């Protein structure tokens, strides 16, 4: 199964060679001082102070290091894999082997249907907003769960989790609902298991209050909020909630309906869990399991709420990057629910056949490559059709022209840069030289110290 997973992941890894910075990456790379960068974004855009810190401090473009920029997707893949591994160890089985297999499985299913692949892995600015905070959140979930159940006191871990909460809150407001839901559930677990960790839970909630206080009192956020009457506010809130539910359900339909890879991976998951004879650490009745599954799936419907509320009438289901986070949680909740169901079933003798795992793994691998809507298929096609290679070559040419102090200028003293002809769906974010994105030209010119540019179609 690991071999099949590696084969499926191969196109994603090879695509790292063809990743190149887009315009918004440059916009976040022209301020040299870290603290001022964080302050500037906090004052003028939004309260995502941790994301701003990443833009400022973990930005290879600030040192024009394009190779490190290309390594970021690999780090994200490793981060996602590690967070799934930790979750598997915490919630499903102490078997490291099973945890490795399950984390590969979850990673493949997530990447297969993530609504916007470039924004999930390859577009630095966006990955700092969506993927990195999500990874940190998942690590917080597993470590806080372990901390509450552990008999040992660990102040160091407690401090890290509290700082992690700050990172999640300052990373993306879409994680507010999952964060609240998780710590409420953790409080419930603490009470149910008489773990006597109330002080720690209180500290986590205190961290949530402090961090979201910073986020929601950002002047950048307030600039976008109009003062409305109470009735209008209620109306707006209801509309935003409705939109969040409808948009997520629309996306969910696409993640489940006709998604054969999900069906095969579900069977494979059941087989793996059964093969390793795993049973949950906690015993829940059918009713309690159903309630938990209902709460988890229900909470996913509200993850997009901060977006639908702030975007008001412009909120749209086609703003796909917002649904990366709900897609990630959907995948995790889907498998966790399966685990709860499987653990209730007395025995599945057919699931213990050794050849079954191999057959299902191969079938799963094939299903990714045969589904034309799958990101695996799209990534593979972009490599085979040389779209990704062409895209990289075009951007590289623009970069070398921009870096060249003796580059030839046209009659109007402008440096001619080209509009992309190759636009691979798996890598290209859409934020490059286009007519409607001229407001990013200033930052690009400042980055490369160019006076004037003119964008022409690539030859």
């Amino acid at each position, binding site marked *: 199964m690991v071999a099949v997973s590696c084969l499926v992941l191969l196109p994603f890894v090879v695509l790292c060679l063809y990743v190149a910075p887009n315009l918004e990456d440059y916009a976040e790379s022209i301020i040299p001082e870290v603290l*001022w960068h964080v302050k500037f974004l906090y004052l003028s855009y939004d309260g995502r102070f941790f994301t701003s810190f990443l833009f400022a401090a973990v930005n290879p473009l600030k040192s024009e290091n394009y190779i490190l920029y290309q390594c970021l997707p690999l780090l994200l893949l490793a981060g996602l894999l590690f967070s799934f591994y930790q979750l598997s160890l915490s919630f499903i089985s102490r078997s490291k082997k099973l945890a490795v297999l399950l984390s590969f499985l979850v990673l493949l299913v997530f990447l297969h249907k993530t609504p916007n692949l470039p924004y999930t892995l390859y577009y630095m600015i966006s990955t700092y907003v969506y993927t990195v905070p999500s990874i940190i959140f998942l690590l917080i979930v597993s470590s806080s769960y372990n901390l509450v159940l552990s008999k040992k006191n660990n102040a160091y871990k407690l401090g890290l989790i*509290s700082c992690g909460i*700050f990172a999640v809150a300052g990373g993306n407001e879409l994680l507010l609902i999952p964060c609240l839901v998780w710590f409420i559930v953790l409080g419930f677990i603490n009470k149910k298991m008489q773990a006597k960790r109330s*002080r720690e839970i209180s500290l986590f909630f205190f961290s949530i209050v*402090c961090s979201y206080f910073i986020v929601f009192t950002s002047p950048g956020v307030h600039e976008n909020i109009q003062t409305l009457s109470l009735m209008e506010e209620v109306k707006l809130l209801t509309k935003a909630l409705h939109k969040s539910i409808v948009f997520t359900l629309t996306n969910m339909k696409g993640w489940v309906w006709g998604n054969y890879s999900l069906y095969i991976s579900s069977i494979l998951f059941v087989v793996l869990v059964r093969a390793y004879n795993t049973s949950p650490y906690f015993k829940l009745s059918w009713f309690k399991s159903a309630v938990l599954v209902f709460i988890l799936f229900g909470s996913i419907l509200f993850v997009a709420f901060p977006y639908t509320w702030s975007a008001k009438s412009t909120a749209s289901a086609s703003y796909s990057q917002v649904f990366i986070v709900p897609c990630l949680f959907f995948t995790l909740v889907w498998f966790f629910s399966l685990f709860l169901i499987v653990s209730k079933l007395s025995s599945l003798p057919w699931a213990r056949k050794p050849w079954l795992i191999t057959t299902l793994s191969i079938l799963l691998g094939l299903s990714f490559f045969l589904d034309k809507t799958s990101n695996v298929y799209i990534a593979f096609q972009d490599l085979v059709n040389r779209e990704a290679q062409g895209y990289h070559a075009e951007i590289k040419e623009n970069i070398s022209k921009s870096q060249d102090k003796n580059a030839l200028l046209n009659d109007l003293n402008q440096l001619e840069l080209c509009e992309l002809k190759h636009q691979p769906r798996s890598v290209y974010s859409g934020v490059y030289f286009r007519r409607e994105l001229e*407001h990013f030209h*200033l930052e690009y010119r400042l980055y490369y*110290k160019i006076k004037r540019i003119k964008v022409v179609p690539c030859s």
Partner: protein
Amino acid sequence: MQLNNYQRSIYLIGLALFIFTFLFKYYTGTFLTISKESGKEMISFEINKRKNDISIKSLKASCLNYQDVFNGILLDFKRNDLPCNQLLYNEILTSSMDSAYYKFIEKMYEHANFYEKEITDTGRILYLYQNKNEDCVEPAIITFVDTEEESLIESIQNLPNYLECYCVLSKKK
């Protein structure tokens, strides 16, 4: 009640997080509203960013005390002893920081205490205010539109007669 080391560290972590929150708000100058210093810092950052930019799409300034703005510009030009408007307009074509265009923008920023920005399909627009929503009976607005330099020149040529006054003064001298 005696606290053990672990319990003490829980309180210490809580205290550290509280201090971080306090320091962050203090550093950004955003306790209740955005502080005047932070506003000024933002403005000077915006002007620095545009120091070498000759393709500002649009700059709107309202509620600025234009008398102060123009007096500032005139003072600067008096020091440099420019002979007349014509030269002033010619300078606009240059991308130098000393051009009249930059002097004008710089002065507008200097007199502004607040700014807002709007991102439209055609580009970024900056709004500068001296007194936001206060003492602003008839807001004066100057807009530079289009990237064409002619449009910028035209906008500046349309300024009230302050520059002419300067030329007159200059000739008298």
